[in-house]
């Protein structure tokens, strides 16, 4: 599903980018170049932050955290091709505002469809810890290049197998993609995931 924004082709409302410039940067992001986020979006981080403080009466910490979380989500949607060129600045601020409202009023579990793990242990308590995030990072670096990339593309960017196949083998013709897709999916299931679990278990 493509998220459509209020119609506006005005570069002033799109971080000063024309449609063409945005699409070049977007394609680069989808191929692993983070310029769109690190140069364009971060340049407007402060503006969004100030908006939340001034107009939503947020304290600095909540505003910073909401803007950061909004940017994480926007990056994921951009990578998955779910955001189009249209009033991007306003969209950034609106996403941050939504994130801020969640910080102010934590949602009931019933309203969050994907976080309900039927278990006594709330997994987020473990995952919120900085040292655990570092250990997962160590496990990925020990896992090595191709598997780590595969796991990141599959489980973080949530790309489909054909998209991952195209990303990793951009020069391969279309009729070969299906075969590569199957190879990658099998490699992930039989080799990468078990190895990742094995390494992470020893680190924890």
């Amino acid at each position: 599903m493509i998220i459509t924004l209020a119609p506006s082709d005005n570069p002033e409302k799109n971080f000063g980018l024309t449609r063409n410039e945005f699409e070049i940067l977007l394609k680069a992001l989808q191929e692993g170049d983070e310029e769109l986020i690190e140069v364009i979006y971060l340049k407007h981080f402060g503006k969004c932050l100030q908006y939340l403080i001034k107009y939503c009466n947020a304290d600095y910490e909540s505003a910073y955290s909401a803007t950061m979380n909004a940017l994480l989500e926007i990056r994921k949607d951009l990578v998955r091709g779910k955001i189009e060129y249209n009033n991007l600045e306003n969209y950034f601020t609106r996403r941050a505002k939504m994130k801020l409202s969640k910080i102010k009023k934590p949602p009931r579990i019933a309203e969050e469809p994907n976080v309900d793990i039927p278990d006594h242990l709330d997994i987020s308590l473990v995952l919120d810890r900085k040292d655990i995030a570092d250990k997962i990072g160590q496990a990925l670096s020990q896992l090595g290049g191709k598997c780590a990339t595969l796991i990141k593309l599959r489980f973080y960017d949530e790309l489909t197998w054909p998209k991952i196949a195209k990303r990793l083998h951009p020069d391969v013709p279309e009729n070969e993609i299906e075969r590569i897709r199957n190879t990658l999916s099998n490699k992930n299931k039989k080799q990468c995931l078990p190895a990742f679990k094995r390494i992470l278990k020893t680190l924890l």
Partner: protein
Amino acid sequence: MQQLFKYFKNKLSDQEDEEITRKLIEAHQDHEYKKKWGKILEEKFDILPPNKKQEKPKKFFLSKRTALTAAAAIVLSFAGITWYNKILTPSIPPLQTEALVRSYLAEKYHYPNLKKGPREEGIRVKANHAYAKSNYKEAIQYYNQIPQLEGEDFVFKGLSYLYQNQSEKAIPLLQEATALIPFKGFRSDEEIRWLLCLAYIKSREFEKAKAELFLLASNNQSKRQKDAEILIESLLNNKDTKK
């Protein structure tokens, strides 16, 4: 059995397995991006992270009458909460878990290095000696005088509070110690985590305790694996601590 236990023991369906992996990778990757972007924001755009930013306190004025009403409301709320905790809520931590924690704490075998070395200073030696002699109050006073606490100091100052039943003061110190892992002087990081678990249980922070205990229990090489499993079992079998 916990979800992550099952994950490591390959007892989940493919779909559940992928879901847990997704959450793990997301936790790491989000953390990495936040770190990277935070650095760029600070260096290029002069936007500081909240822990470095000092906010000016907001000024607000209350009328005398409003202030008195607010104060009265606070006093009454505290009284109400205390009454509720004492009279209406069961005395948790549950007996069995509490007894277990007591027995684990009774086997006091964490001792600081008492030998004088080039890194040792007078106050630290006094603090460690007071701790070793179980003079915890005195130990805390000495630890408070050390200008810059190091890894092991956080552990033994935390333990001094823990042995005095002041677990709420022990927790931040033990957390600080876990953040400094690895550091010289302490036997193993899992022991610090273990002590933190005991402090959490004593403070009735059962979910945090379970999260830490699970990590200890899922590590086959951990010397505390068995103990952690026993405590998890005890927490899960009790209606007050079971979520």
